[in-house]
C-alpha cells in the first residue's frame, strides 16, 4: 500500500503499533502523536485503536511479557492447579501488573488456539505449550536469570498437529496452480457456477452460501473489488485454521486467487489473529513462493490482465474482529466495531468497495471444488450441508486434535471417536455456539441442525459446569466491543451475577433474572457477539438447572460482601484491626 502521496510505502496502523509495542514495551502518548502524524490520521483514532486491542498497552509491559490463555482447554486452570497464581508467586508479581524492575509482566488472554496442547501461553508473541508446575518452575528460573527467549529449549515452542480423521479436504492435497489452471480453461462465470452448484456454505459457522456471496460481490459496482480471508480464529476451542495455515496455506491462497478471478479483484488480505503472529514468516514465505511460480502478481499463469496479490494483516487481540464488518474496520486501521448492516461487505466492504470475506477452510474447499467439480463435493454431507467439516476437538477427551467428518455426522459418533463417550456436556461452535447434554448427542453437526465453525469443547463428568459458565461469561464481558448497551452492560452484569451465585450469594430469584438478562442481550444487541454471548447460560438453565440452583441460598442473601465493601474505607483510614471488620456471622 502507498500513502496519499503515493511515494513511501505506508505501514498498516496495527503493524506500526505492534512494532512500537515490541520495541518500547508500551505505546506512549508521544509515540501515538508521531504515528498519527506519520500516517496522517487523527490522534484520537490512534488512541482509540491502542485502547481497543488487548495486545497494545499504554503502560510498559515486562521485558518478558507472558500472557497465559484462560480458555477451558488451553487455559491456566485447565488442569488441577492455578498456573497463573503459581507463576506469579514464583516471580513475585501480580497478574496484570508489570514487576517494578520491568523484568516481567504476567497476564491472561483469551484462548490462543492451543487447545490440543494443554495449558499454554504466549511469551513475547511466541506460544509455549504443555505448561505444568514443573515447566513453570524452569520458566521462572530462566526469566529470573534473564535468559533470552530464543535460547529457551526449542521443544517448548513446537506445535504438533494431530489429525485423527481425514476426509474430503485433508485427503486430497492440492498441487499449486492446478485449481487455477482448471478455472482458466473456463471463464469466471463458469467457475462461479461450479462453486454455486457445489452448495458450499461458509465454514466460519454462519453458513452463508459461498457461491451467492461471490456472485453478489461480482455483480456489485465499485472502483475495486477485494478478497479477504478471515483467519481471526478467535472462537475458544478452535484451532483447525492454525493447522490449515501451517499445512495448507498454499491451497488457501489458491482459493483466494480463484475468488479474485471470479469477482475481479486485484488485492487480497489475510487477516491473521494476533495470537497467530508466529505463523507470519511461514505465510510470507508461502506467498513469495507463489509469486515465484507466477501464481500471484501480474498476468497470473499467463492469463493476460489477471493481476492479484495478497497481503497479511495481523490483528492485536480482539475476538470481535472475527465478525466480518469488524474485521474490515480493523483492516482499515480502526477499532473493530461492527458496522451497520445493510449494506453488507459484498457491496460495501473494505473502504466501501465490494468485498468477499470468507473463512480459511471455505477458500480451501473452493479451490478443491474448482479442481474436482461440484458433484465431487456434494457427494459428501447432507442435502442442505454439502461437503465435510474440520472439527477442533479438545477438553476432557482421550484424543484431542483435528477431525474431518462429512457434514451430518452424529455428535455421539464424534465423542466416541475422540475418547469422550461418557461426556457430561459438549459445547459445539465455540462459546458462541450451543451447550448440549447427553439427551442431544444424537443430533447431527450440519447447518440445519448443530452448526459450528469447528470448535468442540468436551466436558467430562467431574467438571464443574458453573465454573465453565463463569469462564464463558468472563470471556464475553472481556471481548464485548462496548458499542451497544445490552452487550456492553449485559455481559458484565451476567458475569457478575454468575460470580455471585458461585460465591454463595445467589437467591432463587436469580435464575429468572439470568434468563431475562440472557434474552435481552441475545435479542437487543447490535451484532453476532451479543446475539450469541448468552447462549451458554440459556442452554445451561434449560438443560442443567441444578448447576445453578444447587448454589442458591434459600433465604435472602445480600448481593455483595459487606465486609469487602469496607475495604476502601479501611485503606483510607489505614486500619485493618478486628474492629474495622464486620462480624461475619
Amino acid at each position, binding site marked *: 500500500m502507498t500513502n496519499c502521496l503515493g511515494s513511501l510505502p505506508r505501514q498498516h496502523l496495527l503493524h506500526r503499533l505492534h512494532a512500537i509495542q515490541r520495541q518500547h514495551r508500551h505505546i506512549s502518548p508521544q509515540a501515538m502523536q508521531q504515528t498519527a502524524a506519520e500516517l496522517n490520521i*487523527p490522534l484520537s*483514532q490512534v*488512541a482509540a485503536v491502542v*485502547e481497543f486491542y488487548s495486545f497494545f498497552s499504554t503502560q510498559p509491559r515486562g521485558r518478558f511479557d507472558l500472557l497465559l490463555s484462560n480458555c477451558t482447554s488451553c487455559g491456566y486452570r485447565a488442569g488441577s492447579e492455578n498456573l497463573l497464581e503459581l507463576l506469579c508467586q514464583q516471580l513475585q508479581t501480580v497478574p496484570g501488573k508489570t514487576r517494578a524492575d520491568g523484568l516481567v509482566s504476567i497476564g491472561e488472554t483469551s484462548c490462543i488456539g492451543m487447545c490440543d496442547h494443554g495449558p499454554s501461553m504466549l511469551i513475547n508473541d511466541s506460544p509455549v505449550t504443555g505448561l505444568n508446575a514443573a515447566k513453570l518452575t524452569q520458566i521462572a528460573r530462566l526469566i529470573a536469570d534473564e535468559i533470552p527467549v530464543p535460547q529457551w529449549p526449542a521443544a517448548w515452542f513446537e506445535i504438533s498437529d494431530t489429525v485423527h480423521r481425514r476426509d474430503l479436504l485433508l485427503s486430497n492435497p492440492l498441487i499449486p496452480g492446478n485449481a487455477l489452471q482448471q478455472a482458466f480453461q473456463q471463464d469466471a462465470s463458469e467457475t462461479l457456477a461450479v462453486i454455486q452448484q457445489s452448495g458450499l456454505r461458509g465454514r466460519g459457522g454462519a453458513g452463508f452460501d459461498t457461491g451467492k456471496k461471490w456472485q453478489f460481490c461480482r455483480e456489485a459496482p465499485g472502483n475495486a473489488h477485494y478478497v479477504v480471508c478471515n483467519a481471526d480464529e478467535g472462537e475458544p476451542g478452535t484451532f483447525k485454521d492454525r493447522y490449515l495455515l501451517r499445512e495448507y496455506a498454499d491451497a488457501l491462497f489458491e482459493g483466494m486467487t480463484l475468488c479474485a478471478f471470479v469477482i475481479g479483484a486485484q488485492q487480497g488480505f489475510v487477516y491473521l489473529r494476533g495470537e497467530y503472529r508466529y505463523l507470519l514468516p511461514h505465510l510470507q514465505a508461502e506467498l513469495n513462493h507463489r509469486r515465484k511460480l507466477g501464481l500471484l502478481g501480474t498476468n497470473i499463469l499467463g492469463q493476460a490482465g489477471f493481476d492479484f496479490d495478497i497481503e497479511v494483516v495481523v490483528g492485536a487481540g480482539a475476538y470481535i474482529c472475527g465478525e466480518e464488518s469488524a474485521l474490515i474496520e480493523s483492516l482499515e486501521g480502526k477499532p473493530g466495531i461492527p458496522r*451497520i448492516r445493510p449494506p453488507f461487505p459484498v457491496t460495501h466492504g473494505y473502504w466501501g468497495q465490494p468485498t468477499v470475506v470468507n473463512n480459511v477452510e471455505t477458500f480451501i474447499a473452493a479451490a478443491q471444488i474448482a479442481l474436482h467439480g461440484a458433484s465431487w463435493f456434494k457427494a459428501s454431507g447432507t442435502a442442505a450441508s454439502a461437503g465435510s467439516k474440520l472439527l477442533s476437538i479438545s477438553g476432557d477427551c482421550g484424543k484431542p486434535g483435528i477431525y474431518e467428518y462429512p457434514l451430518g455426522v452424529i455428535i455421539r459418533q464424534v465423542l466416541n471417536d475422540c475418547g469422550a463417550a461418557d461426556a457430561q456436556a459438549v459445547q459445539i461452535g465455540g462459546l458462541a455456539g450451543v451447550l448440549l447434554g447427553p439427551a442431544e448427542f444424537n443430533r447431527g453437526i450440519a447447518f440445519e441442525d448443530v452448526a459450528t465453525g469447528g470448535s468442540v469443547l468436551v466436558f467430562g463428568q467431574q467438571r464443574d459446569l458453573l465454573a465453565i459458565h463463569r469462564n464463558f461469561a468472563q470471556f464475553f464481558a472481556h471481548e464485548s*466491543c462496548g458499542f451497544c448497551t445490552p452487550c456492553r452492560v449485559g455481559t458484565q452484569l451476567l458475569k*457478575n451475577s454468575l460470580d455471585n451465585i458461585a460465591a454463595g450469594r445467589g437467591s432463587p430469584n436469580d435464575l429468572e433474572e439470568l434468563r431475562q438478562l440472557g434474552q435481552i442481550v441475545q435479542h*437487543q444487541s447490535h451484532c453476532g457477539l451479543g446475539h450469541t454471548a448468552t447462549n451458554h447460560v440459556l442452554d445451561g438453565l434449560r438443560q442443567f438447572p441444578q448447576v445453578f440452583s444447587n448454589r442458591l441460598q434459600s433465604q435472602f442473601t445480600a448481593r455483595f460482601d459487606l465486609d469487602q465493601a469496607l475495604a476502601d474505607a479501611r485503606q483510607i483510614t489505614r486500619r485493618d484491626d478486628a474492629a474495622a471488620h464486620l462480624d461475619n456471622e
Partner: protein
Amino acid sequence: MMTTGVDTIRIDGEEIPFTPGQTIMDAALAAGVYIPHLCHYPGLPPSGNCRLCVVETGNRSVAACITPAAAGQQIISDTPELNATRKAITQMLFVEGNHICPSCEKTGNCKLQAMAYHLGMLDDHFPQSYQRREIDASHPEILLDRSRCILCDLCVRASRDVDKKNVFAIAGRGTHAHLIVNAPSGKLADTPMAVTDLAATICPVGAILIKEKGYEVPIGQRIYDRQTICETGLQEYTDKPIIKKHQSE
C-alpha cells in the same frame, strides 16, 4: 400529489408512508409516531448503539434508526414486552454510569431521566457498577464529566460531521469504553471546541455541560417538566435544528 403507489410500512398496525432511503425511524418520526431513542438525532448519521429503538419485524429484532424501511414491513414497537425491555436497557445505562439526578445540573433537561419516566422506571434494578471516570474541567466554558456519559456517540458525530472539528472519539473496549478528546494532552482546553458548537449542546445527559449556567431555568420549568420525551423527540424531527444550522452556515 401522488396518492397511489406510495410505499408504506405498518407500525403497530398503523400504515405509514416512506420514501426510499428512509429508515424505519425516519418514517415513523415523519408520521408523528414516536419510537424511544437516545443515540439518534435527526440530521446526524444514525449509530444504533443505545438499542432503545429495537422493534420487531417478522421474527427479527432490529434497531429502527439503522434499518431501512421496506415496502410492506410489519413492525411491532409499542408493546408491554418491548417497553419492558427498553426499561431494562435504560436501567443498564443508569447503573453503568454515576447518575445522581438530584445533584445534576441536567435534571429536568436530561433525556436519560425523561426516558426513565417515559418507561415507568422506578428503580435501578441492576447492581450499580460505581465506575471511576475522569472529569475534564480544563476548558474555560465547557465541562466534561464522564461519570454521566452513556456512550451515545452524539457528540462524536456532531463534532465530526456538523462542527467539522472532530473533537471526540470513543476508545476502549466493553465496560472500559470511554469518551476521549482528540488532543495530545487529552484535554478539552486544547481543542477548538466552543460553546456554540453543536457538540457542546447535543449531549442527552449531563456529561457535557456549559459552565457558569447553573440552574438558570428553575426546576419545575425545565424541558421535561413541561413536555414528554415523545413530544420533544417528534419536534426534533419536524424542527430539524441540525439541518437549519447547516444551512445558516
